[in-house]
């Protein structure tokens, strides 16, 4: 009797749990499915209503998006920016994280407390203009390089993340390498850097995602230089085009073009994405 009732309870819990989880999944996935299926529909199907699946698969929406809106160029820009930010983020966070964790040097206290203080300040949109002035002072405000540098930025959280990870690597390794005659730089690049792979993978994944998805910084830097627009900016700006109302299908094709690469990345690396989010919290 007792066992029966526990079993029934468990059954009820599982049913409710599954229903809840399925409803939440439908909620999160629907807009993405709508985007991708919608990108093959006609404008009339989208605005006047139609079936869930497209009545016919209009691949020409994509060629329209690519040809008329110059998405090939903006896609290339996005790839250059994404990869550039990834490489620079990995390089700068690994060196800085290593130095903060291992070295004692003049000014360390001051610099480290500045990093620590700025983690907690939510600056909002005010950073955009000073960022722009820095780039224009350096005469790189009209180039992808400027955008890449602005998007890499200070990497404060990632530096702290990497520095925490370096602390878990035994110092004996560095010391042994130095005794064996390794220079300080070789010790870092050949001994420590390879050991940082797990945490640098997280930095790489998240910085690529941030750069690929970024809108505001990319938008303000490309306002006066449309040729360096990224895909995200180009797609979002379609909303403001004159014939936007007649081009829902092209907008969704554009949105799909910008979403699909990151979706493919997610299919292969969803574990890393999900675990990476709490990488810094593992040791609490």
């Amino acid at each position, binding site marked *: 009797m007792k066992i029966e009732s*526990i079993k029934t309870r468990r059954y009820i819990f*599982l049913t409710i749990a599954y229903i*809840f*989880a399925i409803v939440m999944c439908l909620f*999160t*996935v629907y*807009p*993405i499915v709508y*985007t991708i299926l*919608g990108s093959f529909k006609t404008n009339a199907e*989208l*605005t006047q*209503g139609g079936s869930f699946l497209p009545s016919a698969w209009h691949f020409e929406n994509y060629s329209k998006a690519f040809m008329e809106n110059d998405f090939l160029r903006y896609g290339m820009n996005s790839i250059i920016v994404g990869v550039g930010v990834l490489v*620079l983020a990995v*390089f*700068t966070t690994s*060196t*800085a994280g290593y*130095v*903060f964790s291992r*070295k*004692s040097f003049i*000014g360390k206290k001051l610099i480290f407390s*500045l990093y620590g203080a*700025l983690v907690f*300040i*939510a600056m*909002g*949109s*005010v950073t*955009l*203009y*000073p*960022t722009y002035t820095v780039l224009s002072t350096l005469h790189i405000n009209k180039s992808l390089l400027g955008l890449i*540098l602005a998007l890499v*930025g*200070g*990497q404060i959280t990632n530096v702290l993340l990497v520095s925490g990870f370096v602390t878990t690597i035994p110092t004996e390794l560095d010391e042994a390498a130095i005794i064996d005659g390794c220079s300080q*730089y070789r010790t870092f690049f050949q001994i420590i850097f390879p050991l940082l792979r797990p945490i640098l993978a997280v930095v790489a994944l998240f910085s690529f995602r941030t750069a690929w*998805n*970024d*809108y505001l910084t990319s938008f*303000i830097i490309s*306002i006066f230089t449309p040729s360096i627009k990224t895909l*995200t900016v180009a*797609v*979002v*700006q*379609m*909303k*403001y085009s004159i014939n936007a109302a007649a081009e*829902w299908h092209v907008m*969704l094709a554009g*949105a799909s073009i*910008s*979403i699909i690469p990151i979706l493919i990345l*997610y299919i292969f690396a*969803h574990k890393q*994405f999900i675990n990476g989010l*709490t990488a810094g919290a593992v040791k609490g």
Partner: protein
Amino acid sequence: MKITKKRLRESAVAYSLLWPNLLLFICFSLFPVIWMLKYMFFRYGGIGTTETFTGLENFMRVFRDEIYWKSVLNTFEYALGKIIITIPASFALAYILNKKIKGSGFFQSLIFLPTIMSSAVMGLVFYLLFNVYNGEINRMLMGIGLISSPINWLGADHAMHTLIIVAIWGALGNYMVYFLAGLQQIPQEVIESAEVDGATGFRKLWYITIPMMGPILKIILMLAIATAFNDMNMILVLTEGGPYNASMVMTLYAYKFFFPVSAANTVVPQFGYGAALSFVSAIIAGVITILFLRFSRKMSDM
């Protein structure tokens, strides 16, 4: 410490590795703060115009600016609405999916999906979905008979609700993963010994799991508050803060004194005033966080 030759040499090595990050930090993290702290006392229209020191004039204007204080209230409403639904729902999801039920990993990766999407691009998609006459949401709701006439989702009455729904969509997976990490830190022995003592189902959840999550919940809530106060991408694309500032939030309001919302628009920049707005907003966000910390400390003392 005395500056010795050895220490100088070590510092040189350290800086030779640190400088790329330090330079980017100074240019793009530190400089913007200093810039704001200076220009909030100036009237300034950008490169090529003169800057005039105006003392506290910008701040006087902030305090008289009704639209700004409306945007502050909107930010509170937005943050509260987002957090009040997201936190319990994502905790429930984490609680369910932490029990090794079938398909748990699959559910997790689907619910996490919005987290990797560009909120600006998805803002465009939601703009179409929530469109009053042609949008799929109204068509669906009318199809199943839930509403009889289309709801103006992006109109003044509902824009804020729509933004909250969309914010929840984007945040669920994020907080679910935080809670999952928290749940996995609860030692299995505690749960087992409670079971031996006869605790089941909801009693176990209420008396063991939730209290043990306390410290982590505090961190998660702090993060949630900070994030909600800074959200603006989705709002910029979806409603631009409108109509008639009905969905204007603090950061977006300040933004509009710096840059236009699209390449087709222009603004007459008022950088000094934008800086003052941003400073006041940062203070408000800071005060809220401190109040929350004090409140939660009192809670855990009880």
